[in-house]
């Protein structure tokens, strides 16, 4: 109890679940809720707590204006207000009535809004090996000249690639989607969502027919059981975690299960912590599903009426009784049984799924098994029964919805000719203009085309892929690849660019952003961008104008001039799709966040998707015709229509398959990575101390076997590379070492971790899996000796040429676990 009260995040506000009448009211559709008498509370019972983060020396009375916005930290998208004084942002505070955070702020916000040195204020262009300042006219002129030259060549559309990141608003992403998909006609559009949200999105579409979270954060209020699957909520979603913790401290707290190889505040809080061997999530899930079905703890009527694939699911999970699953996952069988009992007994089960599943072995398959669990128990579409497949920064949701990455706008299916015709009609262009002759390219494929030389212009908005991907700088620096970077700072990617465009940060431009539970917030311009920096929307509109992109009748293809008009254009595109925004206006958003889908009429969006077990799986509605979970092979329209899902969800089965990187004699330990609390993934600003010494968490048992003491300098080697780190004796499981990545996945530690582990992909979502690698660890220096200023970094070549003679390999994990289970 003590440690929870000493929590650095702020005052606890324990609360209990809403009463039965309120729960009933929460289940009503929006229009009916409007008609309820005012005595029935419709909001969340979670007490408000307004956090205020202001610059030193400024208090609330000094603030001249409070401008509504949303948090860029985490993927929650909490509503907040930006404090302005003397034309400058001096802090932020939460919004009491906000449905996401009820006034709370992500600790990342403490520093997120502070102005930093080094903002770009003028466009830069390449002059030999340096970048020089220039005018907007010159910079845009160069981009347009290059674009026109490329378009004139055969297959011109295929010579453009776009990569986006977290700073863009919905309006900007949709504009980019129209420019890219209808103006230029390129299928090469992707972005940071591939690293953050691709598996969440793929799993939702695979099970339910379309992307979009079935549940909502308010399910935490109602639930009687809470399951966190590979989700270190305390680090990744601090505000959501506070909500969970407050329920746990209040009356009638929910039971709680956490699955995570690592120890964290979440796993310490949980009633059942399943510290599975990394990479074995599917085996665990199959074991849990086995227990549910074998004990009859599932809703047979729901399964019968609303799902497809039960027989095949049972055929697969029948082979995973708790005992076998427990053996594979290296956890006590009793714990698996206890978890199954909680899941089986829950009346309102809420699940959240994150990196521990989405970036691990069999990612999409494992995430789909959580969906299966909710389908088996009929725990969807009603208060407390919800699943949230969490992803990266909030605007990542918008990138996926608007078609600026991956699929077609409005969660449309590129393989559905009807969907392509809808877009062609909307944009008034020929269907042949819209790239639908093959699957959209994923990020790594786009960079591969750039490396091959078939992509001649790569436009990077608000992202720094060079920093994230070792070796990319060389590719982008090639003469043939013209790189445009649109950012706030001179990023690593900007350093190799041909044109750098200075952009506006949040608070300096207007637009909307959608959080993980489909809540749309309006962020308004509070201050002017510095120097000549421009809002991203203005830059993209300028490009469309200069490129003279036109529709079939010769009118301008992009017919809007500002954020609100762009939002209206997007609404028309979203109409009738699962992510219907047609009932949302800027005016309504000024009153607070609204969830999609929201059609005109009611004053609420739909809080929970799939009420009554009706899913987005009819052939005309679905976002995908489905993939083989093991290989990513597309099943195709014919098979899909033959299945005739007609609104039923898919129970997708998957056998457990060991990760290709299981520990063996040579590399006996398993390395996983974790992120520290104070991250800020939207990259509003370059954060993170690049020379911070990396730390490796080693289990005390393993450390004893290796002769490593707390604070020793150790060398970690995988078959792919090596790095040096300071050992910290902690860790939960013998045989597992953990490398915390620190701030926002940046810096040398993250890069080195990527070198060690970058091998696997999820075949369906194409999300890189970076959390597991077999490694060996050896002491290189004692605790007193200094660490090199920057961590020693050895790439693939370095490791191959390295002398392994000094390495004392750890003993085999099986032996270690027997000896040190109790440590």
């Amino acid at each position: 109890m003590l440690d929870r009260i000493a929590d650095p995040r702020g005052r606890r506000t324990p609360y209990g679940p809403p009463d039965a009448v309120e729960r009933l009211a929460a289940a009503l559709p929006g229009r009916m809720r409007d008609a309820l008498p005012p005595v029935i509370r419709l909001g969340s019972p979670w007490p408000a707590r307004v956090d205020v983060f202001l610059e030193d020396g400024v208090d609330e009375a000094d603030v001249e204006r409070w401008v509504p916005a949303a948090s860029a930290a985490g993927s929650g998208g909490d509503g907040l207000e930006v404090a302005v004084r003397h034309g400058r942002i001096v802090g932020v505070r939460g919004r009491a009535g906000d449905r996401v955070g009820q006034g709370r702020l992500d600790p990342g916000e403490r520093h997120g809004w502070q102005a930093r040195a080094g903002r770009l204020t003028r466009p830069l262009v390449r002059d030999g090996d340096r970048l020089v300042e220039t005018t907007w006219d010159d910079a845009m002129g160069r981009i347009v000249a290059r674009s026109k030259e490329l378009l004139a060549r055969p297959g011109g559309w295929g010579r453009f690639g776009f990569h986006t990141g977290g700073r863009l608003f919905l309006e900007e992403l949709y504009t980019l989607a129209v420019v890219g998909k209808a103006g230029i006609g390129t299928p090469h559009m992707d972005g940071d969502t591939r690293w953050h949200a691709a598996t969440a999105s793929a799993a939702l579409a695979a099970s339910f027919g379309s992307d979009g979270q079935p549940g909502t954060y308010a399910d935490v209020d109602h639930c009687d059981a809470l399951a966190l699957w590979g989700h270190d909520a305390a680090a990744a979603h601090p505000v959501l975690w506070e909500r969970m913790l407050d329920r746990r401290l209040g009356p009638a707290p929910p039971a709680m299960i956490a699955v995570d190889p690592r120890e964290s505040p979440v796993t310490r809080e949980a009633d059942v912590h399943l510290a599975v061997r990394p990479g074995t999530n599917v085996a665990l899930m199959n074991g849990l599903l086995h227990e549910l079905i074998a004990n009859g703890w599932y809703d047979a009527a729901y399964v019968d009426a609303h799902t497809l694939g039960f027989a095949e699911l049972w055929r697969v999970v029948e082979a995973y009784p708790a005992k076998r699953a427990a053996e594979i996952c290296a956890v006590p069988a009793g714990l698996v049984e206890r978890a199954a009992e909680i899941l089986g007994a829950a009346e309102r089960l809420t699940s959240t799924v994150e990196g521990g599943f989405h970036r691990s072995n069999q990612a999409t398959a494992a995430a789909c098994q959580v969906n299966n669990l909710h389908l088996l128990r009929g725990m969807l579409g009603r208060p407390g029964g919800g699943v949230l497949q969490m992803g990266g920064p909030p605007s990542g949701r918008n990138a996926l919805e608007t078609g600026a990455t991956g699929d077609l706008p409005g969660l449309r299916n590129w393989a559905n000719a009807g969907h392509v015709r809808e877009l062609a009609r909307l944009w008034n262009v020929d269907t042949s203009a819209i790239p639908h002759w093959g699957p959209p390219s994923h990020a790594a494929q786009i960079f591969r085309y750039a490396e091959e030389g078939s992509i001649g212009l790569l436009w990077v908005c608000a992202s720094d892929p060079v920093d994230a991907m070792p070796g990319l700088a060389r590719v982008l620096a090639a003469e043939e690849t013209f790189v445009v970077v649109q950012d706030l700072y001179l990023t690593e990617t900007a350093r190799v660019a041909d044109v750098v465009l200075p952009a506006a940060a949040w608070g300096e431009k207007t637009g909307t952003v959608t959080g993980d539970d489909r809540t749309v917030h309006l962020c308004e311009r509070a201050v002017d961008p510095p120097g000549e920096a421009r809002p991203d929307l203005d830059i993209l509109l300028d490009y469309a104008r200069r490129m003279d992109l036109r529709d079939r009748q010769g009118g301008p293809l992009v017919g809007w001039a500002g954020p609100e008009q762009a939002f209206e254009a997007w609404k028309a595109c979203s109409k009738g799709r699962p992510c219907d925004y047609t009932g949302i206006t800027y005016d309504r958003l000024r009153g607070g966040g609204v969830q999609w889908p929201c059609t005109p009429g009611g004053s609420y969006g739909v809080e929970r998707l799939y009420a009554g077990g009706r899913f987005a799986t009819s052939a005309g509605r679905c976002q995908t015709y489905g993939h083989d979970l093991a290989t990513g092979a597309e099943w195709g329209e014919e098979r899909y229509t033959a299945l005739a899902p007609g609104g039923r969800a898919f129970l997708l089965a998957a056998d457990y398959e060991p990760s290709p990187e299981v520990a063996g004699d040579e590399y006996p330990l398993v390395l996983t990575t974790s992120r520290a609390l104070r991250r800020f993934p939207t990259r509003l600003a370059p954060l993170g101390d690049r020379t911070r010494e990396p730390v490796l968490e080693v289990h005390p048992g393993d450390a004893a076997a290796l002769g490593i003491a707390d604070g020793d300098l150790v060398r970690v080697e995988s078959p792919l590379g090596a790095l040096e780190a300071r050992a910290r004796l902690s860790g939960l499981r013998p045989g597992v070492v953990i490398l915390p990545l620190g701030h926002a996945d940046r810096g040398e530690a993250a890069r080195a971790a990527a070198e060690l582990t970058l091998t696997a992909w999820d075949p369906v979502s194409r999300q890189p899996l970076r959390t597991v690698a077999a490694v060996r660890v050896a002491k290189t220096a004692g605790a007193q000796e200094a660490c090199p200023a920057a961590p020693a970094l050895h790439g693939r070549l370095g490791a191959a040429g390295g002398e392994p003679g000094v390495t004392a390999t750890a003993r085999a994990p099986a032996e270690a676990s027997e000896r040190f289970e109790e440590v």
Partner: protein
Amino acid sequence: MHLAHYLGLLHRSQNELADAFRAVRRGHPREPDLHGVCERLAGQCSAHARRVEPFLRHYSDFAPEEPERLHAPLFAGARRGGFGLLRDLHDLYLLATVCDVSWGVVAQAAKGVRDEELLDVVRHCGPETTVHLRWLRTRIRQAAPQALVVVP
């Protein structure tokens, strides 16, 4: 009876396909997505060949001389570049088709000789070969427009 010859054709084709998947992975090391899947599919092909082997030995005792031109090579090593990858995948598709048709033919024959064990093998392996074909088709569709139209 000629069943052994078709089992032989299948056995050899599966081994060739396994080698070809590995050769394509090695021949295109910079393609980000080939590594895991090719290795996995190659492993399945090798396993298929191993499972056919005992039946091949068994039915060889009843086989007449091998018919002419039973086997024709379809893949002769990985090519280079984006276009080369497309052609390689095309070859692999043809090779996988040989396996797919062979599984079908062997299934019919297994029914004819009332060999339930052989039929079980077909029931297990045949669908995996179907997935191989699906994956190759998917990857070919992904690669074709860029490789054919957008020349570096």
